[in-house]
């Protein structure tokens, strides 16, 4: 029943979006270009240094790809969470609260940003290329089996981070500035192995903004660097715990929604 409603709402949003086709095509192309430039820069740096603290180009490529796919999947599925401050500033959140469905479901079904799929595809290509090179020296069977789990966990963690950030808007109205600290910067940082960062930063990435678990922790084990099989369980546990906490925070925050005057 819930799923049927979700599909109905999503298809309505896509039909709305398709009313402005040019805009759709344009944003897809421009987003793809931005992502490509981003990776070319990373590759250029790595080419110059060969390796980063014991991680070679292709190993970092895997980290980069996972981080990038996670973020892109979240941006595809939850653009309205990302743009949540408009609901506060324009008081549009009212309209979600008069329906017999949870506002989160309505937000998620309101829009799919298909132009972000380009980013996910680009990340997948980088992962595939990197895996091909890594396979010369490592066995990648377990990695391949585990990869879908990693991507789902990364997606859940990025969504949870975004949901926590969106919840802040119930108090501050605006969240664009916070997103730099809670989403963009940490995911950019997760393109590289965590051991290059100073202790306090590592502490943050292993606790309040747990991006280390998206790629670094499982890869330590899967690329035979350190750790044990339990490192594969950690991302799942962190994702579940963080998702639960984010939902609880969101439900708490709604009580503080104070609408706008009409």
């Amino acid at each position, binding site marked *: 029943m819930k799923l049927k409603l979700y599909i*109905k709402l999503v298809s309505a949003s896509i039909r*709305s979006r398709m009313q402005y086709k040019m805009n759709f095509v344009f944003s897809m192309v421009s987003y793809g270009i931005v992502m490509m430039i981003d990776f070319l820069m990373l590759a250029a740096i790595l080419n110059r240094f060969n390796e980063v603290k014991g991680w070679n180009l292709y190993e970092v490529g895997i980290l980069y790809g996972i981080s990038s796919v996670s973020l892109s999947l979240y941006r595809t599925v939850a653009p309205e969470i990302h743009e949540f401050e408009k609901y506060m500033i324009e008081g*549009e959140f009212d*309209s979600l*609260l008069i329906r*017999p469905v949870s506002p989160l479901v309505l937000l998620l079904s309101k829009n799919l940003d298909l132009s972000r799929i380009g980013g996910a595809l680009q990340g997948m290509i980088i992962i595939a290329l990197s895996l091909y090179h890594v396979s010369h020296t490592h066995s990648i069977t377990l990695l391949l089996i585990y990869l879908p789990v990693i991507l789902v966990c990364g997606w859940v963690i990025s969504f949870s981070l975004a949901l926590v950030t969106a919840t802040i808007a119930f108090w501050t109205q*605006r969240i664009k*500035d916070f997103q730099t600290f809670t989403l963009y910067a940490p995911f950019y940082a997760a393109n590289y192995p965590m051991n290059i960062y100073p202790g306090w930063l590592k502490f943050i990435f292993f606790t309040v903004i747990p991006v280390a678990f998206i790629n670094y922790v499982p890869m330590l084990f899967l690329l035979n660097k350190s750790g044990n099989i339990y490192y594969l369980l950690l991302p799942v546990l962190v994702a579940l715990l963080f998702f639960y906490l984010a939902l609880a925070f969101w439900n708490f925050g709604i009580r503080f929604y*104070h*609408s706008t005057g009409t």
Partner: protein
Amino acid sequence: MIEANQLTKSFKMYPSKRGILNSMRSLFSAKYEIKHAVDAISFKINEGEFVGYIGPNGAGKSTTIKMLSGILHPSSGTATVLGINPQKERKQLARNIGIVFGQRTQLWWDLPVKDSFEILKAMYRISEQDYRLFLKKYDDILEIGRFLETPVRKLSLGQRMRADLAAAMIHNPSVLFLDEPTIGLDVVAKKNIREFLKEMNRSHQKTIILTTHDMDDIEQLCSRVIVINQGKTVLDGSLEQLKNHIGLPSILKVLFDERVNPKNIIGVEKIEQIDSELTILYDRSKITSPALLQEISQWGTPKDIQMKEPEIEEVIQYFY
């Protein structure tokens, strides 16, 4: 049926700033003012009543409605609608009330009206049969059939409001909250909407709370009026009581070439003077406009004269 008990909503007003540091600072700073948008309001509305909820801009009308419908959490006090606590069981309540915000459509902007209805049909789990009855019935009263295939963004304001009203009725709610449903409409469209609301109340026994700026809405529709100003109830009674209390005066604005000394005239209820400009509230059943003008011209030489039909806003501000 609908009960508000010492319902209060207060906001902390922070001086708003941009930038992360500033917004962080204002998050923790002690610098704020507390503003009571709704201040200990209590009332009880019975089944089948048609209540006009009126007051000047910023008086707290929308805030009250948002608390009754579960959108906002009260700072203190409680609300009960159909025996349901709107905050605790918001979704349950949403199945039993219909809400229309005149300023903002609840329909899907870029899609045909029909698509919006079909989404709502799925959302409220309405059977195919009930849905067909709904389309038929509201085509009869609101003539929605004429623009079912038109995208909402291409509708006229009057059509959009009819579509919004129909959408609010799709799940056959027994309570309606209408926040300025006639705002911006022309005379004909207003008349249509009023007739529709009258029928919903009289023949379908819907309990309705209506906020409006239009005195005619109140006169033609409401059996009971609740007036609020600055978050507090200033009057709760019948339309007759409201009329007796403030007399629904007409307004005359006169600009003299110099400051004058107004005298008492029978039928004039209130005179406000700012420099050489007088605002006179008077009762047309006691004194005619020409007679009043004649009296006034004895005070000095009028330079400009404006007559206004009574607007709730102004009348209430002058009296409270």
